[in-house]
């Protein structure tokens, strides 16, 4: 049996707009979403994907929140292999994700962070499986895709997991150069592995810089040939953070959560309609979340620790 090969992308002009990126995501894709929890999630691209009425996605990832929950709330997801989808101790359970799982709309096969890493490593290295020294004895062992084999050296049992090759990885990075090299600042979460393991990589970025500027910033950490297409999307991670540009918008997340807690119908009317479907573009979304005022508030974290902390006060 010949194994399929991953490809590279050397196209001349990969820079496009958010809408064109979103059109690349097809119904039924296995989708890897970059960023994590409240940080650097490709939200503008996700909103655009939702406006295209994409459905039956299987989402894979480590620790996620509003990105996956929003896709679930818009009925775009039919399978989840996430390790965590929630809002930590602050807002608790992800209501749309939970509702989708409990109603049977979403087929769940929870994963764990290291199992995910090993599966991506198998894909990246072109291996048929990867052993992992954990999982056995827990209920994750029941996953029919995992197998126990005998170690050929010691004879002891060891679990092996199959490669994971997402159809599309969607990432939000701080910078790209015109060639499509990406620079992620701060914790890269699983983004680098997703970029290497996926068939296609779509990226939005805060800023497009010259090669010289990229070098001055410290260089790219995702080489351009992994990247299928990219687009500029300032504040494209909102309401998650994309430091150093802007902090996490807790206030908007709180508004999101209160709509989600009221159930699917209220979530459609109170959140999805206003912030997703009725926005013709990312620019219109930015107007609706408060335009320049919100942008300046969320970038005020830089001024001092007190200003930063102010963003997270309960009344804020």
């Amino acid at each position: 049996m010949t194994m399929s090969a991953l490809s590279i992308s050397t196209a001349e002009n990969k820079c496009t707009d958010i809408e064109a990126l979103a059109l690349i995501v097809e119904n039924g894709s296995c989708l890897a979403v970059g960023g994590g929890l409240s940080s650097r999630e490709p939200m503008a691209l996700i909103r655009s994907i939702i406006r295209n009425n994409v459905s039956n996605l299987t989402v894979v990832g480590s620790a996620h929140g509003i990105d996956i929950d929003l896709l679930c709330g818009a009925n775009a997801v039919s399978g989840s292999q996430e390790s965590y989808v929630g809002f930590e101790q602050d807002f608790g359970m992800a209501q749309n994700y939970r509702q989708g799982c409990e109603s049977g709309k979403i087929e769940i096969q929870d994963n764990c962070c290291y199992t995910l890493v090993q599966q991506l490593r198998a894909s990246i290295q072109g291996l048929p499986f990867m052993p992992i020294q954990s999982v056995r004895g827990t209920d994750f062992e029941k996953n029919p895709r995992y197998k126990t084999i005998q170690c050929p050296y010691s004879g002891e049992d060891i679990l092996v997991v199959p490669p994971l090759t997402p159809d599309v990885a969607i990432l939000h990075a701080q910078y790209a150069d015109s060639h499509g090299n990406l620079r992620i600042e701060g914790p890269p979460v699983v983004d680098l592995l997703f970029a290497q393991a996926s068939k296609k990589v779509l990226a939005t970025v805060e800023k497009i810089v010259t090669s010289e500027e990229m070098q001055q910033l410290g260089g790219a950490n995702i080489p351009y040939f992994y990247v299928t297409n990219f687009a500029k999307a300032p504040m494209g991670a909102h309401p998650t953070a994309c430091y150093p540009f802007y902090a996490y918008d807790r206030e908007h997340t709180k508004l999101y959560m209160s709509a989600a807690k009221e159930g699917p119908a209220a979530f459609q009317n109170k959140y999805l309609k206003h912030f997703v479907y009725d926005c013709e573009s990312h620019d219109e979304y930015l107007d609706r979340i408060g335009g320049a005022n919100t942008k300046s508030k969320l970038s005020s974290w830089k001024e001092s620790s007190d200003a930063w902390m102010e963003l997270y006060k309960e009344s804020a």
Partner: protein
Amino acid sequence: MEQSCTLGELIIDQLARTVDDNSLVFHGFGSPLVQIALHVAKRVYAPNLVLVAGATYGVNPDPPFIAPTTNDWVHDRNAECHLSIGELFDLSASGRLGRMFLSGLQIDQWGNTNVTQLGRKSLKLKLPGGGGACNLSCNTKYITLWTAAHRAEPVKGKRRYRIVSQCDYITGLGHRNSDGITRQQLGYRGNGPQWLVTDLGVFDFNKDGHLRLDSLYPHTSVNDVIENTEFEPKIKKDLKTVSHPSIEVLSIIRNLDPLRIHEKELLPRDRAVTLNGNKHAAIC
């Protein structure tokens, strides 16, 4: 005389005391009690601790304050260096990770944890999921379990226990799973759960790997523990009572967490409670 403190501060101090010096320890995400406890440990109990922050994977950061979400750059301030997600989990797989802190909506008598789902045969409640808990529970040298919601007040006459006989789903492996298979049989590097710190007391595990009450708090009783635990807990013969945190520990906690983010982990009734050091009684 002991310092007055809050329940959250008492739990943080007890979590911090489980950290060994010269070890590499990770805190996950969504767990400010543990996050703060590691900073207390590094400054008071374990100065050579290698502190790896959850979500940001920064090593020995010195955050100016605790934010309501773990994956925030504020928690990465002044980190000496950084790990990648793969590297962090490799450290556990190879036995270098000294301790990890795990919790669950269910924690059972053998130290298994469940953050995946309620309902054994069919799904009753989908929980957020365990992140890397499953992997870390197997090979990390020692595990400290914790919950700030051991107290299970009856709702319409029924208690939904946090400390249960058997987890509906095993996300993190304890000393033996629901089929009675022990971690020794599975050949893991990790020694499993060593401590469980709750809002009612501190537990260890006996030689069979069964949960056992080790210490009470000045304001809690054996009866509190029995009433709020689904099974009959084992109780150590020389049951101790822990003391309140020192002024030094309290000032570290209060300076690091002025937004009182850690109180979100406590039951609402416990958030505003001050434990009076003098009377050893809970007063509101």
